[in-house]
């Protein structure tokens, strides 16, 4: 099979399973592409082939590379998959660092969001790569946590690399690439984020990672698919336990019942991952060394390492509301504290 035919096949944007069975039936990628051009593939517009050809011309301008299976630069971890993607579209830098996936439901609670963000930060601090899906909810929170700590993140999309879904994650998407991470997908540019494109996407998330951490998941949904694929691929599966009657935790609790490793907190996660990924490469910064300010400001910052509500902060510190509120406003002005969805979070460098 020629390189050009394989890329042309990828540009058809077929479901990976369908593409593979077509190649088996017709002998080669080239034969499938020629068939498609004649309109011989059911449900596939022959125009798609022409559009794909036009799009290939634009690839360089879009700052997007094509990496083929078996060529240098293709992530070695994906070799473990029974069905590795033949072609990957990559923006940014793929680094051969140990990677861990943090995934979960889009409909998360602030509990899940807080933990996902904390995991993202801990993974970054340990010097590992965080892989996730750039979706709303847990995925986004984990990516943000990583970026907050100057870490490296990889997002695997269920759409074309130029289609950011959800659209308001555009900034996050761009920041991921700028901060030394990558955004990859097996779908050609311009591909819409159809629902059926996400389960195959999830096998890449788990495949790239040595371990998959499920933060919150309902009974159905992509996070559980990722966990199942991870188990099939021989990856370690971690799950965050939650209240048994909380909808967003049922999936995680089921995973733990079925043998996933329960995660008891960010430090516990790092400890557990160290056994699989090797010891953290970056020394964890101690709070004293990082120059926490003295007095109330310092206490507030230390308490806001993971997202916390103002009232929780007041209760936890046992100080009066005016004192804590004044400290919060000062730290916000200095950029050392940020507000996300009504929760306070200490920013980078603490």
């Amino acid at each position, binding site marked *: 099979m020629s390189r050009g035919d394989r890329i042309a096949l990828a540009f058809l944007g077929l479901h990976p399973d369908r593409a593979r069975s077509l190649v088996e039936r017709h002998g080669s990628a080239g034969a499938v592409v020629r068939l498609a051009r004649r309109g011989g593939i059911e449900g596939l517009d022959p125009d798609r082939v022409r559009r794909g050809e036009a799009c290939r011309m634009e690839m360089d301008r879009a700052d997007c590379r094509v990496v083929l299976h078996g060529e240098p630069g293709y992530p070695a971890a994906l070799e473990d998959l029974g069905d590795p993607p033949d072609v990957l579209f990559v923006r940014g830098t793929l680094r051969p660092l140990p990677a861990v996936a943090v995934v979960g439901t889009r409909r998360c609670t602030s509990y899940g969001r807080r933990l996902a963000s904390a995991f993202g930060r801990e993974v970054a601090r340990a010097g590992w790569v965080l892989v996730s899906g750039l979706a709303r909810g847990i995925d986004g929170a984990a990516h943000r946590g990583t970026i907050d700590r100057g870490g490296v993140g990889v997002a695997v999309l269920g759409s074309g690399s130029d289609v950011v879904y*959800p659209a308001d994650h555009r900034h996050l998407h761009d920041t991921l690439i700028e901060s030394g991470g990558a955004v990859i997908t097996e779908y050609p540019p311009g591909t819409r984020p159809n629902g059926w494109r996400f389960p195959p996407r999830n096998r890449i998330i788990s495949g790239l990672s040595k371990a998959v951490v499920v933060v919150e998941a309902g009974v159905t949904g992509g996070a559980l698919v990722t966990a199942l694929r991870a188990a099939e691929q021989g990856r370690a599966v971690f799950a965050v336990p939650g209240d048994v009657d909380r909808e967003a935790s049922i999936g995680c609790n089921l995973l733990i019942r079925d043998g996933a490793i329960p995660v008891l907190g960010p430090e516990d996660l790092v400890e557990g991952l160290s056994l699989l990924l090797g010891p953290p490469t970056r020394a964890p910064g101690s709070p004293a060394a990082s120059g926490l300010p003295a007095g109330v400001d310092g206490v507030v910052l230390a308490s806001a390492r993971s997202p916390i509500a103002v009232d929780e902060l007041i209760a936890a510190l046992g100080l009066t509301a005016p004192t804590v*509120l004044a400290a*919060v406003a000062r730290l*916000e*002005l200095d950029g050392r504290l940020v507000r996300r*969805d009504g929760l306070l979070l200490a920013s980078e460098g603490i």
Partner: protein
Amino acid sequence: MFASVTSAALVGVEPSPVRVEAHVSGITSKQAVFSIVGLPDASIREARQRVQSAIIATGHRFPNRRITVNLAPADLPKVGSAYDLPIALGVLAAIGVLPPIATKVVAMGELALDGAVRAVRGGLAAGIVAGRRGLPCIVGSAGGAEAALSGADVRGVTSLAHAISVCLGEDPGEISPADSPASVLPPPIDLASVRGQSSARRAVEIAAAGGHHLLLVGPPGAGKTMLARAMPGILPDLTPSEALEVAQAHAAGGRPPAVGRRPPFRSPHHSATPAAILGGGSGVPVPGELTLADRGVLFLDELAEFPTHLLDTLRQPIEEGWVHVARKGVSVAFPCRVQVVAATNPCPCGYLGDSRTPCRCSSPAVDRYRARLSGPLLDRFDLRVTVPRVEAAALLGAGGEASSAVRSRVEAARRVQEARGSLNRSLGRDGLDSLPWTEGAGGLLASAMDRQGLTGRGWDRVRRTARTIADLDGSGVATGDHVAEALALRGAL
């Protein structure tokens, strides 16, 4: 054969005297010709039948003469059956049943065909007019308590015959003491029953102290409504003259004006019409919720559910303290010096940022929801705080400080503001500039303008709140700490 009796009409919430003049011609005709002039509405024209029957039922002859009743001033629109009693007294005086001196009263009431007097709404207006003129006020006995709120000499009567003997001084009538009606409003919720919510409690206290408008943002069931309902309980008592103004507004709205000294609390539903909220109606405009909340709290629950155009029309009256309503040639100004407390969910489903229940909203839906709130009205809220769901542990724990303790601090802060001349809510830029600020305060404000994109208006709002915090603190000068807390309490949304 001429006589006159005074009565009263409401223009907006302001009582205005109405002179009921009666003239009976000297020439006998075949039958009585009874006409009423002076911008009467249909219900007043019907008064002819009621007055005629009541006079006959009372045992007096209704003369077969031309009888003309004029309601002056003629350009003031008058509605309702309230003028039956003064018309009857005027006619009786004009035909000589009553001596002219006996009609030096202010009267208001509806007559039944058998001569009984029914109380009507607006008795308070009659009381106020009577008080100003130093005349006794005769109203239906059921309306005596309302009229007595004015402090006037109020005589309740049960029938036209009773009214005649009161006018003649033969009977004192039913005398209502001036301070009889106790508050009929439900007592405000005590802050002691609000658990947790330390930052929101603090915001409620600051809002009460400076009269600031307050926005509460939180999931359903977090206690936003409870906090809002606690607000009247920590506001200072109304002065007697303020309480009378509040009673007038309620009376003008046709509601029982027994208000007492607690500031009113009104909570219009978001499906209410603009007329119900701003005031209006056909004929003579009646005050809306905005005016019923005058000198008290207007609570807008589910702020984002209110129609945008309605929120836009609220803006100017809230800023000015007056709402102007024009109807059919009558333009009235209703007072609405309200403190607005509004509550909203953070997103359409209400659970964005909640610790237990996942948010089911797409982020464009959240953006659309917030867009409805944003804009000029949102800018009016000096304080915007998050009200998170309270965990079970906190609910079981001890309650917070009681309203009475908070109120004493609020009252102290209000006294400082009174000495300065105005409530902090209405401090202008010049007023703010003339107050002392520490260097630290100035520095924080400058960096907030730089880094958080604080606008000029926002700058003034933060300074107003900071000034109130300093007043609560008993500090003459506003410091960096005061400004910082003010900044922290405008962060939600």
